[in-house]
């Protein structure tokens, strides 16, 4: 609860700051402090100190899993703001508003991590999405940004429409918006009901697949991620996406699982996963721009996160948290470096190791993490995902498919490493201040630390 209220309140404060404070660079510091307080508030919540006791009639349900995810999301955002705050300032005219919107997005994220009712799911998704539409289009004079915003908006609201239809139909079938359905309630429309519910769940599945850009509903992602200002792509592709997964997983774990006897959901998930992995990885291989490659790779990573849907056991829950953290941190790092580059193509990175060794080294760590090489957090993230599925004893073929695609992903991640280290060139960057380098080093250190001791993060789930 703390995180939801505080993020909304800070959002409003930030919004008011936009005209109360004149100095542009102060916004970044205010936002950082706000995020820090938010993080502390959320951790306090984890330890049972809830500042605001509001009866939500069971619409929200706070558990360790959600709270830990909040911490990850807020922490990642904090690092994101610390690392790329300067770029956010340069993204456009309305600096304070960007931070406001980021805080509002976090409000949506925190709602999604706690929702226990389709109403709160819907609200969370929307509170998260609407600010993003604006952020995507924040580069007002840039056609690509315009296009991205329009596409994102149209696709986003279309999927919202589908989601609402799904919710309406499931409501028609069950008579409740709550996630858990009491099945033994007397119902007049028995014959009609189960059909409505299944249809509704299918709609929900499709719309959530849209939101997390799982194939075959991924087509908007590359254009949007490519067109949006890079700083905001970084935010969209990481924290927001992870939150979408958290929501998706909860939905599947409760609502879909209840109707497992009627529909073989897992088979559908498996098909989606394979399609997502296939599309994301194969298309990423052919990209020339690192930003676009990252867009496709985010689809590919989505495929891995979707493994949770198949397994849905303790290990999967631990894994998705670790995956969110690993993926978010690494991607934030890569984008932090990317926005400093003058040329976003692979060739633009040529020889970065010579001109900016620290950037190259940390970027390598991030890329290794994304490819899932041991000693980085990404390895354990993938490890948990795979292990959780193997644990169920079924779908081993899916796991093998997964690892083969992981090997494919190495191809395009390593192209960046190759460009940085092995190719001749003179990669140009904008000015790099020392504090930025220290930030990157700290981020890389966190990733490596999590790669050796994943329990440092996961122990927050159990104490």
């Amino acid at each position, binding site marked *: 609860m703390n995180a939801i209220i505080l993020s909304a309140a800070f959002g409003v404060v930030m919004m008011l700051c936009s005209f109360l404070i004149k100095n542009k660079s102060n916004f970044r510091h205010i936002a950082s402090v706000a995020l820090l307080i938010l993080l502390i508030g959320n951790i306090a919540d984890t330890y049972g100190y809830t500042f605001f006791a509001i009866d939500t009639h069971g619409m929200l349900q706070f558990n360790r899993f959600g709270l830990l995810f909040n911490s990850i999301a807020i922490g990642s955002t904090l690092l994101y703001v610390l690392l790329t705050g300067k770029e956010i300032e340069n993204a456009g005219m309305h600096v304070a508003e960007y931070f406001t919107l980021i805080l509002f997005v976090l409000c949506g994220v925190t709602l999604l991590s706690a929702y226990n009712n389709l*109403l709160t799911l*819907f*609200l969370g998704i*929307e509170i998260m999405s*609407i600010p993003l*539409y*604006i952020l995507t*289009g924040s580069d*007002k*004079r840039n*056609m690509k940004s*315009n*296009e991205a*915003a*329009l*596409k994102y*908006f*149209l696709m986003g*609201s*279309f999927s*919202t*429409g*589908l989601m*609402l*239809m799904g*919710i*309406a*139909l499931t*409501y*028609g079938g069950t*008579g*409740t*918006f709550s996630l858990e359905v009491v099945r033994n309630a*007397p*119902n*007049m*429309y028995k014959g009609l009901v189960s059909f409505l519910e299944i249809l509704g769940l299918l709609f929900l599945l499709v719309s959530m697949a849209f939101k997390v850009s799982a194939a075959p509903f991924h087509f908007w992602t590359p254009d949007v991620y490519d067109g949006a200002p890079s700083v905001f792509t970084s935010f969209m592709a990481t924290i927001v996406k992870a939150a979408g997964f958290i929501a998706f997983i909860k939905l599947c774990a409760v609502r879909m699982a209840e109707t497992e006897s009627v529909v073989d959901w897992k088979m559908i998930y498996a098909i989606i996963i394979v399609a997502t992995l296939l599309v994301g990885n194969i298309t990423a291989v052919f990209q020339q721009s690192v930003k676009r490659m990252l867009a496709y790779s985010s689809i590919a990573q989505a495929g891995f996160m979707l493994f949770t849907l198949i397994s849905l056991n303790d290990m999967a829950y631990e894994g998705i948290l670790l995956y969110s953290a690993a993926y978010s941190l690494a991607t934030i790092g890569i984008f932090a470096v990317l926005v400093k580059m003058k040329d976003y193509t692979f060739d633009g990175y040529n020889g970065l190791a010579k001109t900016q060794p620290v950037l190259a080294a940390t970027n390598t760590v991030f890329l290794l993490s994304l490819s899932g090489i041991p000693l980085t957090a990404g390895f354990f993230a993938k490890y948990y995902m795979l292990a959780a599925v193997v644990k169920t004893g079924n779908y081993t073929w899916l796991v093998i498919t997964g690892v083969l695609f992981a090997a494919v992903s190495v191809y395009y991640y390593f192209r960046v490493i190759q460009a940085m280290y092995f190719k001749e060139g003179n990669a140009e960057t904008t000015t790099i201040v020392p504090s930025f380098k220290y930030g990157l080093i700290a981020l890389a250190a966190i990733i490596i630390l999590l790669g050796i001791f994943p329990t440092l993060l996961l122990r927050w789930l159990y104490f």
Partner: protein
Amino acid sequence: MPIQYYIILAACLFCIGVAGVLTRRNAIIVFMCIELMLNAVNLMLVAFSKMHYAAAFATDNASTAGTDAQLFVFFIMVVAAAEVSVGLAIIVMMYRNIHSVDINFLNRLKN
């Protein structure tokens, strides 16, 4: 009137909306189709609300079944309003840059 009529009407509106989104090229029309979808959902929710209320009313006079769906409709309206404002702003922004609201125009720009 039997509740099925409302549901069928809502379903039809929804399908029109979906078809519009998928086939039309004018951003504003696409957007209106999306709004149509949302309103179809509203109608459907209200219909279901009545349906469940009637079902519950038969056994329990004091039942509050169905209230939540009406509540939901309120939230959909609010969110739709927020979406409208953002969406229209985006479309206006695009119109100011390229003097067109044709979705395909953007794809043409890319090549």
